[in-house]
């Protein structure tokens, strides 16, 4: 292809955070230096991703192939950056900087142990995340996917107590179990079926194959359930379990990086492995649609009943992830564009909500929705940000969430799936139903007796700044979605 540019930038962007690991270990005693290194790596990573943006916007595709990678199976380690990779990479790397600042405030505020280990594995996880985003073929994707599962385990189990242990066990058994049990055989089957081709460039891998309905369905579901980071039911329970992690982990990894890696993989499978045409011809996308729709509604209903704030957010995430899967499975132009946009929009909204949950915990040690009465008057910034996050995730103006939801609904209408369109609408109502009572409680309910009623007592500044920034970010995405739209257009136009 003529618009392909060979560039080492994706590799550098991927490795930037990994390079921080030795430095983090060297400076493990000097807290200030260690945090500086984290920031340095975050900014370097973001800058490297940004450096690729102009080329991508011109319609070019960056590639880098390690020729000698896995020569035996004729699939090299390859990096490839297109519009979709760019959306995800921009989101993940920019939010890492915010999360780094937040982690500093959170970890210091709670005097957590083993902070060096925390920052080290965080850096490794980000390397794996960008590795997935920039993967040029299915095998590279799988490699970084597994790396992410393993690197996040020490983060999830950070507290090393009984709860962390069982949460970590669930986490790994779901993620590794499904990836080895479903995704790996699906990958090898694809490899055999396509005659040894796993690369994402050009036409979809299986576009030319003679795949029948049932094998195709099994393969699609193998991938969709195999990449269970996307949290599609019935393989979703790892996500609420992973909420035992410190909040920065839940915020960046379980609202943005890890879960978005899951849906990213599914988008790649739908567009890059099967191709829209083949799926539409076989009609197997509808099965995926309905599983995702079921997840959307069920998880929203479960979220309604959760009193633990982080668990409520987790179930909300499960629902929102299935929006993305549903969008891409609809196969219509605007639905696919909407699902790609939703990666970014939901990321900003949900990370704000998680930051707020953590800030509340740091400031007053409260974890449950029922404890939040009147808290908004003590923590106005936090709860204002929470409200914005909630508005964005529900999909109301003036936040980015509206745009992606608009596209998704448009796409559903375009595909002629009125029932699925209703799923989006019903789910939006449910989203509102589980978020707005929290905001109402915090601002309008009387403070329970025995608690200070006056005076502002926010979390440390290092916690408040990031959540304010991400909240503003999700509003800005509503007014300036230009770049994002261009990137999705690139992806949709290309097929």
């Amino acid at each position, binding site marked *: 292809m003529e618009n392909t540019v060979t560039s080492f930038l994706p590799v550098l962007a991927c490795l930037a955070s990994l390079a921080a690991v030795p430095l983090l270990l060297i400076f493990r005693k000097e807290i200030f230096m260690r945090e500086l290194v984290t920031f340095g790596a975050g900014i370097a990573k973001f800058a490297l991703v940004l450096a690729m943006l102009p080329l991508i916007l011109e319609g070019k595709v960056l590639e880098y192939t390690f020729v*000698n*990678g*896995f*020569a*035996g*199976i004729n699939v090299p380690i390859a990096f490839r950056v297109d519009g979709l990779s760019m959306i995800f990479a921009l989101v993940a790397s920019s939010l890492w900087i915010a999360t780094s600042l937040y982690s500093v405030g959170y970890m210091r505020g*709670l*005097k*957590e*142990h*083993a902070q060096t280990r925390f920052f080290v594995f965080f850096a490794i996880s980000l390397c794996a995340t960008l590795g997935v985003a920039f993967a040029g073929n299915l*095998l590279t994707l*799988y*490699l970084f996917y*597994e790396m992410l599962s*393993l690197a996040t385990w*020490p983060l999830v*189990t950070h*507290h*090393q*107590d*009984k709860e*962390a*242990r069982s949460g*970590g*066990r669930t986490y*790994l*058994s779901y993620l*590794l*179990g499904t990836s*080895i*049990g479903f995704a*790996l*055989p699906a990958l*090898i*089957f694809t*490899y*055999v079926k396509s005659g040894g081709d796993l690369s994402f460039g050009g036409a979809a891998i299986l576009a030319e194959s003679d795949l029948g309905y049932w094998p195709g369905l099994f393969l699609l579901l193998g991938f969709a359930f195999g990449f269970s980071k996307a949290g599609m039911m019935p393989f979703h329970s790892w996500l609420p379990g992973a909420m035992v992690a410190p909040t920065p982990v839940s915020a960046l990894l379980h609202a943005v990086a890890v879960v978005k890696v899951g849906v990213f993989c599914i988008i790649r499978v739908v567009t890059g492995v099967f191709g829209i045409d083949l799926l539409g011809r076989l009609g197997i996308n509808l099965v995926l649609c309905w599983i995702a729709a079921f997840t959307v509604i069920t998880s929203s209903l479960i979220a309604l009943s959760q009193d633990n704030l982080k668990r409520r957010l987790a179930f909300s995430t499960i629902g929102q992830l299935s929006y993305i899967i549903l969008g891409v499975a609809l196969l219509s132009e605007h639905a696919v564009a909407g699902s790609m946009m939703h990666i970014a929009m939901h990321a900003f909204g949900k990370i704000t909500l998680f930051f707020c949950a953590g800030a509340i915990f740091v400031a007053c040690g409260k974890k449950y929705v029922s404890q939040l009465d009147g808290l908004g008057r003590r923590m106005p910034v936090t709860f204002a940000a929470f409200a914005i996050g909630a508005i964005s995730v529900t999909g109301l103006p003036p936040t980015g969430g509206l745009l992606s939801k608009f596209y998704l609904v448009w796409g559903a209408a375009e595909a002629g799936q009125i029932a699925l369109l209703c799923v989006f609408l019903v789910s939006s109502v449910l989203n509102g139903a589980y978020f707005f009572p929290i905001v109402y409680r915090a601002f309008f309910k009387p403070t329970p007796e025995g608690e200070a009623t006056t005076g502002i007592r926010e979390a440390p500044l290092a916690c408040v700044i990031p959540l304010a920034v991400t909240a503003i970010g999700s509003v800005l995405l509503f007014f300036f979605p230009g770049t994002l739209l261009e990137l999705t257009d690139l992806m949709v136009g290309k097929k």
Partner: protein
Amino acid sequence: MLEQLPAVILLAPLFGALLISLFGLRERRACFPVAFASLLIALASAIGAGTRAFTGGAYDYFIGGWEEPLGIGIVLRVDSLNGLLLIAIAVVAVLALIFTIRPSSEKDEGKTAYFYILFLLLCVGLFGITITGDAFNLFVLIEVSALTSYGLVAIGSSRRCKMAAFHYLLMGTVGASFYLLGVGYLYLKTGSLNIQDINTILATNAVVSESPGVTTAFILILVGIWIKMAFFPLYGWLPNAYSYCPSGSACLLAPLMTKVSVYVMIRVMLSIFGLEWVFGHPGWSDLVVWLAVIAILAGSIMALAQREIKRMLCYLIVAEIGYMVGGAWLNDPNLWGLTGAFYHILADAMMTLCLFLTAGIFFKYRGISEIADLDGIFKKMPLTSIGFVIGALAMIGVPPTCGFFSKFYLIRGGIEGGQWEYVAALLISSLVNAVLFFRIFEIAYFGKKPAEGHDHEHNHEHEHEHEAPAQTVLPAREAPLSALIPLLAAAALILLVGIFNGQIVELIRVAFEIPSTVVSNLR
């Protein structure tokens, strides 16, 4: 000189063993250097001999120049297949030898010299099995390696070592007898013992190759080798032998003995009878693959039930043997199963070495043999833990370790050959391995009694106080260099064999497809 390398591989450890038996009994400190030097020479010649086969194709080496395939000639044959295995054996032997530099309690009783003599003779046996071109010599060398390995198991000081060795000896002898009987039948039918010669006769003379005697010979040989390689249900001798024997012996025996037996099976199928003959029997392939599936599942389940690290690893070997036997018998059109099986011989040798070294370190320097006692080991022995984690990830099959690629090839073979039960068994076994090792990781990372809440630092101090007596017995926090060097080298090899799987597989496939012979005529 370079033409003589195949012989040097055998002679170096043999003379090393002789030297130790002459001088080492009096001067114990001389044992290790002699053994080390002789194995290094063997390693260098293995690389030399292997490289020649990689670049120039297979070649024969006639000891004494007796070229005619009459009677029991002594011929060595090196091709790219056994070239790879020779190097792997030499590397594993050198690394396992380094681990024994520090005497463990078993050897303190004046057994040092005997240990090294047996160690070197076992290497002679294994090298010989790998490169011999003669079916009867193969038997002799199998017995050389078997007898020395009985000794290496029995050299441990505890009583149960002796029992395990005796059990091993009984089973091993039965296996060898089966093999010998099979070779006898083959000799009756073909009148030859030279592997290539038998192959030619079977390929050209249909009367011979279709006679029931040859079929009987094949079955006898196969059963004999299966006992040797601990193929389920013939594995009974393995768990006791490998878990009770001294750590130094286990690090040599576990990675090599069973794997070399798998090689013998592949060699018998490929070079003596020929794949066409073997797979020409309808139903055989399906039957053996099903047996392998049972072996994989049974090994995995039994591994789950173990409390001791070494025993768990032993049952994993039983499962891995199932991988290789199944892979070799997949009979898929492009031979990816056979390729994967041979690649897995190399990969599994490295993985098993790595894991048995860690188990040895835990036992030798911490006195730990039970999984439950590994609490908090990640913090106490970080470098050992790195090696252990890499070995474990390879067993699970996480890229880019070699375990991932062997599974990839094997599963590919399973899919192309339509043996779905084998594919399912491999995946289930990977999942079981993940459970097994993450159970250990959890204990090693969390400690036995997880702390409640956030006051973790305090809790850790408390634990240290609790463990104080144990720590006075074991002053070293991390294992000494003599144990770390082989362990980390093995871990690095796991990654290297994985990353360079392309080149390795190419060499393996050359041996399968292009039969070219370069005869070196030396007198």
